[in-house]
């Protein structure tokens, strides 16, 4: 697993260094008018919004070669760090930039954060800005939302996403809907973040995937990060957004290493990331499953398939623009996700694709998700609740017949 993540890290580093600052207007010129959704304009100002272009190198070549090539083409140098450090960097830069940004959560202050995302921030910004709360998710989420109503921009950390189920009332009613029910008077610029997903033998209650429960709350945006590059960019974009944003991290991805640019960058919250362009089939994924898909992609390339892998990143709303363009090219879709089969992100994505791009599909949309069971403790059983690369390879072979 470590070797895979480093190889993937190198590839991602290459792709991010090659990305030029493509403006949204140039993307718009490729917009086909039939059923795609028009892309909106985003405010840019001084922010450099990077969109990671697909790199043209094929997967499976020597990673060390690629890393050497990347150091030649990289502009400013960049620095290497782990995903939780990238999150911390993004958070720290935003807290420096705007004094209204504060952090609210359990053990974020003196302890430094249970995943070290807020390490040393309390020493720098003080106890009021990096607030250690008692174990009372419902009320500290409510308090952060109340503070947001007065103009602050809190970042709420759930120690594990599953604990935020206790705060569901506050997130649904007061966070998502307050802008609407007040007729636009109050904005709630909060960021709710935390690790979720299936970890290593954590048991059922600590391995929940809440994307499926939160996705129908109107008024919120949901994003999922998967690499240090997009973790920092999405964290910054989420803090700057005026809407409430839920940022899903994954417990097993916190120690991914990657080189990210030195200069400031903010990613767009509604865009998907093209991880690997291809011709035969579109594979849509997010968060940890991206790495399972890339592992399966190695095998698929050896077998002669050319998958196009897209990390959808934005779970609500879906980036149907990127996804649609990809489907128009490949005509086959496989969705690989860690959410449950019933009512998960994949289910909504399947419905959206079928409604919008039905004419372009040569085969039915296939969705590989986790089993509809509580996550067991035993390692072997836990492995089988989640989608494994071998299953992805089989599914692609079936679809491409």
């Amino acid at each position, binding site marked *: 697993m470590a070797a895979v993540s480093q190889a993937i890290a190198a590839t991602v580093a290459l792709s991010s260094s090659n990305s030029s600052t493509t403006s949204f207007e140039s993307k718009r010129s490729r917009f086909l008018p039939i059923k795609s959704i028009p892309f*909106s304009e985003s405010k840019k100002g001084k922010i450099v919004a990077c969109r990671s272009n697909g790199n043209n190198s094929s997967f499976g070549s020597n990673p060390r070669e690629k890393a050497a090539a990347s150091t030649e083409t990289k502009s400013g140098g960049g620095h290497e760090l782990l995903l939780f450090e990238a999150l911390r960097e993004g958070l720290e830069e935003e807290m420096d930039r705007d004094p209204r940004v504060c952090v609210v959560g359990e053990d974020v202050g003196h302890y430094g954060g249970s995943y070290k995302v807020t390490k040393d921030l309390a020493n720098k910004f003080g106890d009021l800005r990096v607030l250690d709360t008692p174990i009372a998710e419902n*009320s500290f989420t*409510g308090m952060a939302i109340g503070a*947001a109503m007065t103009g602050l921009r809190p970042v709420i950390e759930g120690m594990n996403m599953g604990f935020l189920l206790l705060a569901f009332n*506050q997130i649904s009613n007061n966070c998502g809907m307050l802008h609407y029910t007040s007729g*636009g*008077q109050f904005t709630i*610029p909060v960021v709710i973040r935390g690790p979720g997903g299936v970890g290593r033998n954590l048991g059922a209650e600590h391995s929940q995937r809440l994307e499926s429960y939160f996705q129908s709350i109107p008024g919120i945006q949901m994003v999922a990060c998967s690499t240090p590059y997009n973790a920092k960019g999405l964290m910054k974009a989420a803090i700057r957004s*005026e*809407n409430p944003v839920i940022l899903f991290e994954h417990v097993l991805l916190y120690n991914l290493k990657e080189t990210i640019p030195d200069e400031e960058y903010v990613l767009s919250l509604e865009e998907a990331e093209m991880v690997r362009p291809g011709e035969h089939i579109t594979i849509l994924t997010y968060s940890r499953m991206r790495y399972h898909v890339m592992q399966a992609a190695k095998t698929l390339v050896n077998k002669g398939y050319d998958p196009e892998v897209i990390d959808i990143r934005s779970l609500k709303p879906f980036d149907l623009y990127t996804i649609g363009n990809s489907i128009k090219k490949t005509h086959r879709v496989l969705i690989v996700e860690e959410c449950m089969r019933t009512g998960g992100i994949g289910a909504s994505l399947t419905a959206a694709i079928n409604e919008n791009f039905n004419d372009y599909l040569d085969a039915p949309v296939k969705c590989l998700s986790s089993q509809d069971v509580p996550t067991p403790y035993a390692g072997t059983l836990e492995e089988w609740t989640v989608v494994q690369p071998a299953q992805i390879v089989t599914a692609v072979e079936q679809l491409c017949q």
Partner: protein
Amino acid sequence: MSLIKQIASSRSSLLKPFITSTNLVRRSFSSDSSSESALSIETSIPFIGHRIDPPSRTVETTPNELMDFFKTMVLMRRMEIAADSLYKAKLIRGFCHLYDGQEAVAIGMEAAITKKDAIITAYRDHCIFLGRGGTLVEAFAELMGRRDGCSKGKGGSMHFYKKDSGFFGGHGIVGAQVPLGCGIAFGQKYSKDGSVTFTLYGDGAANQGQLFEALNMSALLDLPVILVCENNHYGMGTAEWRAAKSPAYYKRGDYVPGLKVDGMDALAVKQACKFAKEYVLKNGPIILEMDTYRYHGHSMSDPGSTYRTRDEISGVRQERDPIERIRKLLLAHELSTEKDLKDIEKSARKEVDEAIAKAKESPMPDPSELFTNVYVKGYGVESFGADRKELRAVLP
């Protein structure tokens, strides 16, 4: 005095004749107090404190303030009764929770604070909205779901908000507004602007866990929040002795001091709120329990008489009604006459009727309003109507 200016401008034309008439009244009865001089009035019962020395029973007030109390409370009472008839005429649908009987809490609180201080309450929010400077037309239009409502018709009875005068709503879920209120106080402490937050909840909500969680955090952080329990003795249909093992809500803060106030006496409420505001800016949270009563049922679908006797309701109305108390004070101190007070009531009725007529003229919201304000900026997100093809909108 400031309260007079902030009530709807349509009333300003009403105020002038009454001020001059009270002057006339004063001269003919040869009292030596001018219209600005202070009166010292004792509250009905003394305050009871928990871990704190209660403030004095003697309240300073002025004749103008008392007249103000009377006028605004009459207007509030009239508004609630008109809302009752509108509901029965099916112009207001859904839920309608009426505040008549409890007006003294809204009025007394407003008299003690400024518009920079924040108030947040639950769903029984019509009168507090009015007290914070909302207009009758906005209130009725929102109740009837019209475009001119304070939340553009998209909120309804339980979601009145007025951001510019510090009224944070208007919340439907019992108890959920208490952590929000503590958060508003956190924002006030963060920005250090010397204002406080009054978080109102009922005796039913006092049993919610999130209240104690929020209270714990507010006490830890010394937040300038005042938790006000409007104890009308019934949580929907359940009497307080059946819902709470300890109905002494002012004591429930344990380490947080509390004060029990007669909520039907506007002057007592004013004294308690002033005292609480000064206390809280230095020392952290405090709980005020307002002993009050609602004449209507929990909401319009509850007759209000299945869990309490009609004798009880009429008994409270005779002995403790807040408007009657102010009326008696005004007459006893010879600040007005019976006839003038009756005229005030008549003009309040007229004003409310005019506001209802004006609100009825306002149209229902435009269908495009279905998709506005979902996001602050929709980023091109699409939303679909039932048939997925005809009604499509890009969320603005």
